[in-house]
């Protein structure tokens, strides 16, 4: 149990790596917030006649924040401790594989009319869960 908690909390990383990881987390949080805000505002139709302009503006803001997430994550990967980098790469590979397999399996099933296909948000959830599982299992394996 202790090892699992250490794996989740990433204990022992150098302060510079923790600072970089916190930057990624903050940008990701901001990205998720702008995404939710954009969706809610679009649903509510808050801006009346200016709806489309505001929707495009919010989408651009969300995109720009998303680019900052990618830049911050790339910087973190370049600077991070080499074992943690290897764990991150494995987790990313697992996330891509999970998305690929999940999507192809759902496409086959929907083709067979058994279930409806996965939408974009489900793919993002699958990738996120696989990425988190990859990080934790990778850290546990190395501990």
């Amino acid at each position, binding site marked *: 149990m202790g090892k699992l908690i250490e794996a989740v909390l990433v*204990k*022992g*990383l*150098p302060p510079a*790596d923790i600072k970089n990881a916190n930057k990624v987390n903050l940008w990701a949080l901001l990205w998720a917030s702008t995404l939710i805000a954009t969706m809610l505002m679009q649903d509510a139709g808050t801006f009346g006649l200016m709806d489309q302009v505001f929707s495009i503006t919010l989408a651009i803001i969300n995109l720009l924040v998303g680019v900052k997430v990618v830049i911050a994550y790339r910087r973190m990967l370049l600077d991070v*401790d*080499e*074992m*943690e980098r*290897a764990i991150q790469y494995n987790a990313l590979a697992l996330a891509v594989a999970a998305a690929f397999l999940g999507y192809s399996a759902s496409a086959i099933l929907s083709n067979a009319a058994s279930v409806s296909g996965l939408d974009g948000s489900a793919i993002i959830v699958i990738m996120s869960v696989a990425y988190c599982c990859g990080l934790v299992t990778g*850290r546990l*394996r*190395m*501990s």
Partner: protein
Amino acid sequence: MKNKLKPLRANKGWTQAELAMQLDVSRQTIIAIEKGKFDPSLPLAFKAARLFELSIEEIFDDQDPS
């Protein structure tokens, strides 16, 4: 890959955290290398070799133990 990092570190009287700091990696990385669960990159192996004033081959052994 087998290595002699643990006895070398013990000879110097360093803790894992102290060695990690000198090699600019995390303590977890030192633990994993000592246990043979993680193979260091070439730059890190060179860094360790310079630190202990040994050759890479004297610290790391890529021969199969069997």
